[in-house]
């Protein structure tokens, strides 16, 4: 999807001279196509993420539309105060591109694991987060992201995400009439698929939906989506604390009969032994059996 993003930005820049692509010395094999076509609007600021955001803020305040490219942890966490005091405080259209959600950078270790970027950024008023999972979602909503008012964080997978689940969106009611929704965020499809199978094995049918946004505009959409369910299980490649599931918990407080929200995500600090993405997921995310047990316990009270 990195290539799709840069291709699209390159096209947009053909017709919009306000678009500038900045990188903090990352994007080898990806950003070159933009640099070649728009050399004057491609700026490698060096390994200087804070400076990149500060410069982008000045550009945006001067009428430009800057996109800032880096690995997600560096783009979001290292530059956080600059994002806060710059584009957030001034309501400017700086687009921060964070590559590699969750354990996408697998063997590179915790310095490269974006498991807390959502928590840091979703607290910022007016900042929208977009986490497309595939080329379809990207193509469908890029224009919305590009033209949105205010700052934006694009959480872009480095590797292909699992295909859309081959399940019916309405799986039918459970025997105890408990209605369960499994709500996957961004790139968490494979984890959602595994969890859905585990739930089924325990006799829990769940409907399935995906979300790609955390923003003030999408609050009502999420509220409408989860309304009427007894249990909403959120799945994300982020710490259980502070991410998408926590946001859903905040959203459902506005409902008259809110569902119980069960958050499934990264549950422990990923340092020490590491490995491939799948190994990291098995080792550092919530054990599916634990989440299933929590759902079963709540479901037993439904009837």
């Amino acid at each position, binding site marked *: 999807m990195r290539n799709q993003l840069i291709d699209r930005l390159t096209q947009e820049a053909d017709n919009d001279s306000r678009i500038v692509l900045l*990188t903090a*010395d*990352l*994007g*080898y*094999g990806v*950003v070159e196509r933009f640099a070649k076509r728009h050399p004057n609007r491609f700026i*490698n*600021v*060096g*390994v*200087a993420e*804070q*400076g990149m955001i500060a410069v982008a803020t000045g550009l945006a305040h001067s009428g430009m539309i800057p996109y800032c490219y880096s690995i997600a*942890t*560096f783009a979001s966490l*290292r530059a956080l105060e600059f994002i806060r005091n710059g584009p957030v405080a001034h309501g400017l259209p700086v687009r921060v591109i964070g590559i590699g959600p969750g354990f996408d950078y697998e*063997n*590179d*270790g*915790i*310095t*490269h694991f974006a498991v807390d970027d959502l928590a840091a950024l979703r607290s910022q008023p007016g900042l929208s987060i977009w986490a497309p999972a595939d080329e379809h979602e990207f193509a469908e909503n890029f224009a919305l992201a590009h033209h949105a008012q205010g700052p934006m964080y694009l959480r872009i997978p480095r590797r292909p995400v699992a295909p859309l689940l081959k399940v019916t969106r309405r799986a039918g009611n459970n025997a105890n009439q408990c209605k369960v929704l499994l709500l996957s965020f961004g790139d968490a499809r494979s984890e959602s698929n595994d969890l859905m199978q585990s739930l089924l094995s325990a006799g829990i049918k769940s409907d399935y939906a995906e979300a790609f946004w955390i923003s003030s505009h999408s609050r009502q959409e999420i509220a409408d989506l989860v309304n009427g369910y007894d249990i909403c299980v959120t799945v994300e490649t982020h710490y259980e604390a502070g991410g998408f599931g926590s946001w859903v918990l905040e959203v459902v407080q506005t409902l008259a009969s809110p569902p119980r929200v069960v958050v499934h995500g990264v549950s422990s600090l990923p*340092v*020490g*032994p*590491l*490995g*491939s993405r799948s*190994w990291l997921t098995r*080792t550092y995310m919530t054990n599916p059996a634990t989440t299933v047990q929590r759902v079963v316990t709540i479901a037993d009270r439904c009837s």
Partner: protein
Amino acid sequence: MHDSKRHAQSIRRRILDTAFGANKGHLGSALSVCEILTALGLVACEFGTESDSRDRVILSKGHSSLALYCALVEFGVHNPDILTKYCRDDSLLQTHPDHELAGVEFITGSLGQGIGYGVGVALAAKLTKSEFRTFVVLSDSELNEGSTIEAAAIAGTQSLSSLVVVLDLNGQQALGYTNDVLRVGNSSITWAEMGWDIEEVPGHDMNALINALRSSANVQRPKLVIAHTIAGKGVSFMERNIEWHYLPMTRPQYETAIAEVTSG
């Protein structure tokens, strides 16, 4: 061949063997620091041990972790078999160092953070009147980060004479040559102005490196050893070639690389 050169050559071979076995890259920066890590292995007191009195060696340029693992093996901290675990599941040996592995002081991989940690360690040594020295291996791309300059200024201001930073000045970073990417000035001038002693050495000259690291520090100043190195050193098709920051080797490339390093 002098023992120190033999150590560096062995580290270089281990890097190529291990990276090829794991189909991983980051070779240019790893091959750049073989002599630097060899010199540290020979000079640093109780290198890689858990002893409280050991000299601390901090690899701020964490993307050269494979070179560090190979140096730890070369100097007997770990058994060579450990390298078969590089980038495997459930392993402490990944593409950036983790402090749970013996010989690793601090998790690095986000540039410009290891040096600040090193300044803190050296400050602790000063406050507790400890004898150990602190060595930090810094990449020239880390000079892009403001945090590096902040740490350098603190160290100079605090007169941390037990601190030695070895700057691996290979002139390259991820997307280009450092002078093309960002002009950060002449470190020998700017760091001296922040209170550092400066020594420049050929970064693949073992004697020069060892002497620079051994020489007694100025009682008032930290020391910056600027090591002029070549990214991809020892493998002709990798030397000064930007793409070898990331690329893994094919088998023919690996065989050529091993032959060159062995004959070199």
